[in-house]
């Protein structure tokens, strides 16, 4: 009884500590579950809905060498800051939006790609994306009732994992793109 009375007299302190705990550990785990850009591959998917965790786990089954984690975000994630978006390695974008974001994408070298030329998306004769709608069991591309759109996968202009197209870094983004391509 005395213990309960003591607790009640300091209830505000216990509530403040609870709130602090949630905020502090949210911050700590954001960092614990993150890795530097050199150790992770980030995919942004401009789709209606994304089962991010399941897709990450599936892609991490064939993790490229030197990579610690694969992160998948929907575009809604940008509300937490655009650093992750601007530094992303892969973008899954509807073709109707591709031209708008073109400066963010790397021009590709079709010889380095494992896909046929007719599977690529070109802008002014230069290949930029790979036409695909992969992982439909993880990604819901359109809202129910919306018309079906064509999508393409692009490589980020700031990616450090696109050595075949930038000449430096590694090719982990390409490896993840291949894994993604193989998902139903």
């Amino acid at each position: 009884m005395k213990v309960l009375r003591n607790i009640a007299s300091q209830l505000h302190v216990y509530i403040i500590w609870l709130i602090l705990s949630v905020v502090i550990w949210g911050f700590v785990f954001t960092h614990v579950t993150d890795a530097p850009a050199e150790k992770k591959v980030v995919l942004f998917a401009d789709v209606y809905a994304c089962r991010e965790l399941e897709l990450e786990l599936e892609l991490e089954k064939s993790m490229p060498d030197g990579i610690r984690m694969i992160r998948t975000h929907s575009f809604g994630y940008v509300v937490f800051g655009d650093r992750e978006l601007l530094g992303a390695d892969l973008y899954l974008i509807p073709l109707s939006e591709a031209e708008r974001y073109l400066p963010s994408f790397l021009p590709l070298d079709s010889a380095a790609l494992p896909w046929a030329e007719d599977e690529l998306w070109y802008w002014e004769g230069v290949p930029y994306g790979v036409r695909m709608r992969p992982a439909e069991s993880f990604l819901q591309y359109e809202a129910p009732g919306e018309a079906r759109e064509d999508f393409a996968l692009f490589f980020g202009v700031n990616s450090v994992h696109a050595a075949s197209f930038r000449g430096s870094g590694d090719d982990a983004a390409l490896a993840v793109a291949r894994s993604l391509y193989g998902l139903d």
Partner: protein
Amino acid sequence: MGTIVELYGAADLQRLENRIRRGRAAMLGLGVSALALLVALCCLTGTANARRMEAAAIAVSTVAGWILLYLRRFVVAEGRTELRHARMLGETEKEILRGRVTVTQERVRIPGSIRLRRVLVETEAGTRRVSVNETRAAVLAAAGKELELHVANGYVAAYRAL
């Protein structure tokens, strides 16, 4: 006349010192254990279990924090305050008040200090208001009505039945 009964004897001071020491040891043990557990949770975190681990870390830090706050406030800090009060009673020169003593229900809490109960002493010179540590109020109230009080800085330190 009866014998003088001190509200805080040597055994009481020792009990308070032990309470503070045990409280500090419990805080240290709990703090180190919680910290080790939180570090382990962080180290064992992967993509698949991140949300569960975060929830576990929040639960561990919240509960451990609550217990630590409780121990610090109600065991260590209160023990220290009471010990300081008890030492002050022992070291200060006492004023003797004789008369009819009533331990009232009026409670006083000085921030950062002990909880007190007001005591009225009807002496030949008039009524005096002094205070007694709330934890000792029942002892004083049971001692009878006609008492000789030994008062230090307005606080009852000892009594003797008249």
